[in-house]
């Protein structure tokens, strides 16, 4: 380890990861150097990093989920998803390409996105009550970018790193959730016009509303309410795919329209 001698605490974890993000520089696992970085401490780091983002003028716009598929949970040896914060600085505005040069090793994954029109505060939120708080459903693409080399991180590393947050893009159609079967909502992921993967909403905990309920309950236990107007990225429907400069990435959904970005 090159950082032998570093005395870690929550503040130094946050400063290190935010600096790694700013300079687009990958580093090695922190949790392997500091056994004190457990899941609870990692969420404290995530919350402190959000305060640092607020101090530089960013605003909280929502939350996101990770580890929503069985395969990813098995890979991290956990049996539940993880959550993280979204700020307005993470929005990739329509028509803008992914700033590949400012990122470390971006990967993209298609997601079903909720925008809340009622507050949600757990514990005790169910998939049905969560869905009833959704205002609109949209197609989304999340561009993740771990601050850890080769995406080699432990669960606490990933949580402290705000679940590899990078950028997110939403589609051009806002759909009412009424009448949509999101478990069967189909999604094709295309790179340069070729289908590379496909899935439905059921790939996320069986139904994206289960992911929303999980987020409401997880944040609720930490004293946070999911607020009206907040965006919820419910988790990758497919495996994340590396973003190459110049690539054209599209997610096409059966009812939610399409979202297209360029690398």
């Amino acid at each position, binding site marked *: 380890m090159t950082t032998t001698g570093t005395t870690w605490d929550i503040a130094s974890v946050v400063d290190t990861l935010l600096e790694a993000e700013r300079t687009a520089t990958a580093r090695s696992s922190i949790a392997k150097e500091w056994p004190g970085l457990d899941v609870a401490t990692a969420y404290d780091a995530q919350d402190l990093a959000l305060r640092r983002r607020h101090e530089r003028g960013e605003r909280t716009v929502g939350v996101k989920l990770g580890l929503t598929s069985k395969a990813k949970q098995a890979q991290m040896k956990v049996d539940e998803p993880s959550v993280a914060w979204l700020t307005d600085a993470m929005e990739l505005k329509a028509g803008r390409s992914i700033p590949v040069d400012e990122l470390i090793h971006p990967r993209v994954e298609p997601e079903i996105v909720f925008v809340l029109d009622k507050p949600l505060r757990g514990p005790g939120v169910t998939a049905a009550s969560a869905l009833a708080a959704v205002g609109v459903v949209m197609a989304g693409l999340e561009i993740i970018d771990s601050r850890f080399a080769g995406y080699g991180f432990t669960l606490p590393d990933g949580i402290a790193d705000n679940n590899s947050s990078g950028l997110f893009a939403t589609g051009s159609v806002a759909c009412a959730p009424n009448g949509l079967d999101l478990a*069967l909502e*189909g999604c*094709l992921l295309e790179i340069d016009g070729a*289908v590379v*993967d*496909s899935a439905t909403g*059921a790939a996320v905990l069986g139904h994206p509303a289960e992911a929303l309920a999980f987020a409401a309950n997880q944040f609720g236990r930490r004293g946070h309410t999911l607020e009206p107007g907040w965006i919820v990225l419910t988790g990758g429907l497919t495996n994340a795919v590396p973003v190459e400069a110049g690539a054209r990435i599209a997610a*096409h*959904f*059966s009812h939610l329209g399409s979202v297209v970005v360029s690398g």
Partner: protein
Amino acid sequence: MSAPTATGETALHRDAAEHLLGAYAAGKAVAPVVEAFPQATITDAYRIQQVQVARWVADGDRVRGHKVGLASAAMQRQAGVNQPDYGHLTQSMFFLEHEPIPPGTFLQPRIEPEIAFVLARPLRGPGVTVADAVSAIDFVLPALEIVDSRVADWRIGIVDTISDNASSGGVVLGATPVSPRSVDLRLTGCVLHHNGVVAATGAGGAVLGSPINSLVWLANTVGPLGIELEAGHVVLPGSMTSAQTISAGDTVATTIAGVGSVTAVMGREESQ
């Protein structure tokens, strides 16, 4: 389709066909075709397949359609190929939705959700377009294809699987027909439940961008060989998800948005 032609058949084709027919007869998988017959090419592999189909027809079975395999980017990467393959569906491969499939029917079965096409009119390539293919379809059905390999441990390359009838096993068709005009076959979503748990999800476009493209590919690939896709034939265009390994006693169901659902029941060994 009439019985496959034996034109161009050589001892290699007959011997390799006997190698695979031996697996069916013994109920035991055999060594890869390319190990026993290293000189076999893809063209040889289709002839080896046809020798077996001709044997089944001579023994009283009937060709009732075709299947396309290796139709998704994921499957092609896995097999190290950049094109699909095809096999024959015979009458004995069709199983009913409500009847448990007897244990021992397959050697090492895996299951895949598909959108089956039933043709109203024949299709004969080359030159078949998407428009021709759509207008030749009578209706679509939700389907579960059971793929199987006569090659031990699925140690297959492209020559092995084509020789082995594109790893065909069986098919269970749902019984409610839907018009291809009423469904977006490219964007429709598909969920596969294995013993009640979501095992895989996908969408129609995983199959060559659209399952219709698979039908076009099949018609244009077999046409020059003198094979016509016949009215009434079933075409399985390829799996929308990865294949799932199944065992005796399993229940597998797929739901395809706008197309419907179908369930396959793998029978248990009877206890005495």
